[in-house]
């Protein structure tokens, strides 16, 4: 059982080159902000280190932070053995969002990442099968959960608005 500060310490020791930032001023949970392009290496460490042993990715959610002109991804990790939890956040540019994929560490991330791609257009590098998942494959109007998304008038001849 480790808390977020201890995990941050372990991360800083192991990856002296990478930048980490702990945010714990907002309710309810604190989280660590890391670099989007090395999140796979960090995840490998978190997964394989026997003292941390984060064997399960419970949730992965994309967020559109339009005011800061950035997209972010939250990772909720949990260790079923040691029973501790961790929230990671990566921030990427809104115009060319690129995040390293964690699919080969936690296979369950596959569809979560596809969903984030579908909804926000975040490109996950090295993802085995990055396609739309919920929206039709031929949906051309963009990524619907972005705050500036506008719905098309017609899709395949069907009127979309009420």
């Amino acid at each position: 059982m480790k808390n977020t500060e201890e995990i941050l310490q372990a991360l800083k020791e192991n990856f002296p080159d990478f930048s980490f930032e702990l945010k714990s001023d907002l309710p309810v949970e604190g989280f660590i902000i890391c670099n989007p392009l090395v999140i796979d290496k960090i995840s490998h460490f978190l997964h394989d280190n026997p003292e941390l042993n984060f064997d399960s990715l419970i949730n992965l959610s994309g967020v559109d932070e339009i005011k800061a002109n950035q997209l972010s991804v939250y990772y909720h990790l949990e260790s079923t053995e040691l029973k501790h939890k961790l929230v990671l956040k990566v921030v990427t540019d809104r115009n060319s969002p690129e995040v390293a994929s964690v699919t080969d560490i936690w296979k369950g991330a596959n569809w979560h990442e596809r969903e984030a791609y579908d909804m926000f257009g975040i490109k996950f590098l090295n993802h085995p099968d990055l396609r739309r998942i919920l929206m039709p494959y031929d949906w051309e109007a963009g990524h619907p959960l972005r705050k500036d998304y506008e719905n098309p008038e017609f899709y395949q001849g069907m009127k979309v608005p009420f």
Partner: protein
Amino acid sequence: MINTKSSAIRTEEMVLNMGPQHPSTHGVLRLELALEGEIITKVTPHIGYLHRCFEKHCEAMTYPQIVPYTDRMDYLASMGNELGYAVAMEKLLGIEVPQRVEYIRVIMAELQRIASHLVALGTYGADIGAFTPFLYCFRDREKILHLFEITCGARLLYNYIWVGGLSHDLHPDFVRKTRDFIKEFKPTIKELNDILSYNKIFIDRTANVGILPVKTAINFGVSGPNLRASGIKWDIRKDDPYSVYSKFDFDIPVGKGTHGTVGDSWDRYFVRILEMEESLKIIEQALDQLPDGDVQSAIPKRIKPNAGHVYGRVENPRGELGYFIISDGSTTPYRVKVRAPSFVTLQILGELCKGYMIADVITILGSIDIVLGEIDR
């Protein structure tokens, strides 16, 4: 003389498209099966046929308005969805709810768990070809729906558990009727076991089919009965208790591989039956301890949380249901992401089905018990 080259029969993989309209895809799921004869070489699920834009609605609605939409995600376990949302929101707002509310919530969630498992078990029987247990399960489920109906007036989608309270107090007859139901229901579990669980053909069809090892399950993020069937005692009600679950005495049934290997389809099926018995235990205890009080006293007049984010989770019948809510300080959430158990669980289908036959795809798909409303949201 036979020319071996030209006489060789050209073979190719057959791609069978199962769904979106298929009797046993449990909704509008489409599976693309690559077959060699009847043996599966690859399964590709295609989802999104029921994508109802839940998360977009959350960003446009105020916090209390979201509750009815949560109902419509996992429509077999609406009470569980509402409870999950309420737990997450109360964590974000930092409010305490009266004990009576918590007890009623637990009773409702457990009744809903039984109802949901009944549908899962019944449709599983129908998938395997035994149609009669399906109707027996629906008959018993109807009794639970009656209990919900006298409480809040709805049969399926309740809008009952609100942030900070409940929409109605219990009906005066509720406690008596629930006790009656428990008394009636116990023998029907045995009936279901006799007609389906211990049937030789049923065991042959499900045992040793679709074995899910614990390591793979955790790596994929599988939770709930599917994970427990693989032999690990992981239940959020015990491991990360919410509401008043820590006050009750109940077991966590796990798969034991009685008729095959641990984590096969039969285990996943039988864990659900055992869970129904445990739920009955919890309901009985909760009815005995049910305190008095006002169920609406803690409902906030205006929900306007501070900026921040929360991940609240509950043990739904299908596994861990989590709400990740980001608030920007206004009356509507900035972002809500739902960690839907079926969404995560369905990913393992391709892993489980490889090398089995078409009939086994149905067996495995039925045993992991998905609800499309929750997968697509």
